[in-house]
């Protein structure tokens, strides 16, 4: 039980996929315009991560070692397709906001990375918690980045105005603002790491 908790928590801070492993940045930067988009993307990716981690850990003994990567990709693509169809059916607005970045979850390095580095060597329960932890870590990172960008770019967070009379510089809603925010955040994390040492 203790080890399962550890598998879950490691993805959130110590091995955070975005800030520590620096994986899967393309969707992170592209959809972090607003917190709602960020949460949507995080949940979609978490679902794919959970599903593919569980299936991969279940079938790991049947997959020949040489063709394991294509097999993982098929499993991941299946879950991405499920996500795509569900989003289209139940939340067309979010689907339009996320655009091509939903099908692109399939080439998100976090998902394939977890399948290759963890799920194909571990049992179902730990793979489940590993996937969940990584997914939550990814979602948290997305929420942090998108909250900063939404606040600085539009003056609001989740549609609520925080400071009255604040005229936001709209550049933070643009692509260049995303790159600036992630660059500075990564720098900040490096600074914290150096201080600890």
């Amino acid at each position, binding site marked *: 039980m203790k080890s399962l908790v550890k598998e879950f928590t490691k993805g959130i801070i110590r091995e955070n996929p975005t800030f520590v492993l*620096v994986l899967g*940045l*393309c*969707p992170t*930067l*592209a959809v972090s315009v607003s917190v709602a988009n960020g949460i949507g993307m995080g949940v979609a990716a978490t679902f794919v991560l959970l599903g593919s981690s569980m299936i991969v850990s279940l079938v790991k003994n049947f997959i020949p070692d040489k063709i394991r990567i*294509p097999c993982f*990709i*098929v499993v991941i*693509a*299946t879950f*991405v*397709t499920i996500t*795509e*169809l569900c989003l289209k059916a139940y939340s067309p607005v979010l689907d339009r906001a996320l655009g*091509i970045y939903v*099908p*692109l979850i*399939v*080439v*998100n*390095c976090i998902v*394939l990375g977890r399948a290759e580095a963890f799920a194909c060597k571990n049992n179902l329960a730990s793979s489940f918690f590993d996937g969940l932890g990584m997914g939550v870590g990814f979602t948290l990172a997305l929420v942090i980045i998108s909250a900063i960008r939404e606040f600085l770019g539009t003056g609001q967070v989740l549609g609520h105005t925080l400071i009255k009379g604040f005229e936001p510089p709209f*550049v933070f809603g*643009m*692509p*260049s*603002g*995303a*790159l*600036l925010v*992630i*660059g*500075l955040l*990564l*720098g*900040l994390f*490096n*600074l914290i790491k*150096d201080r600890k040492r």
Partner: protein
Amino acid sequence: MNLHEFLSIFISAVFIYNVILSRFLGLCPFVAISKETKPAFAMSAAVTFVITASSAVTWFIYRFLLLPFNLAYLRTLSFVLVIAALVQLIEMIIRKVSPALYRAFGIYLTLITTNCAVLGAAVLNIDMFFVKGKPVVGSFYYSLFQGVCMGLGYTLAMLIMSGIRERLEFCKVPRALHNFPIAFIIASVLSLSFMGFNGFKF
């Protein structure tokens, strides 16, 4: 289908919606392999080549396999597999035909399989040049051309970035910003200047 369309595809894919600086596709190699110009150029040449080839192949798959059999929902799955197979095939052909070129491309060719720019280009082509399950007039040529242009945009961004980072070697960068963070901050400034192309039309 006319020249005008091709020009606007060129401008939007290379400048306004640059693959890296505006669409954020293929960021991993952009920050990882952009420290020197030579490998950066090899990588972008490989990406341009693969995007062009995969644009053509995925168009045919979608038009003649997925649409007639009502399988459009298999788009993501089939494209990923086709691109992975295509990259392997190209690798084998290049190794056989031109070992020198193979050495120049090196591992970059293999890395492209998981480059989201390639899949992104294929999905974008389908989204833009198919209306309600029917190809628009000249759809294939547009897709192919957009593939080439996205590759060119990728090359442009990679070359600018690697040029800057080569000079950065001689600068004093704060220790916390070394490597990734400074690369993103430079990219942010680049992206800011590319934003100036917004509204550029023919």
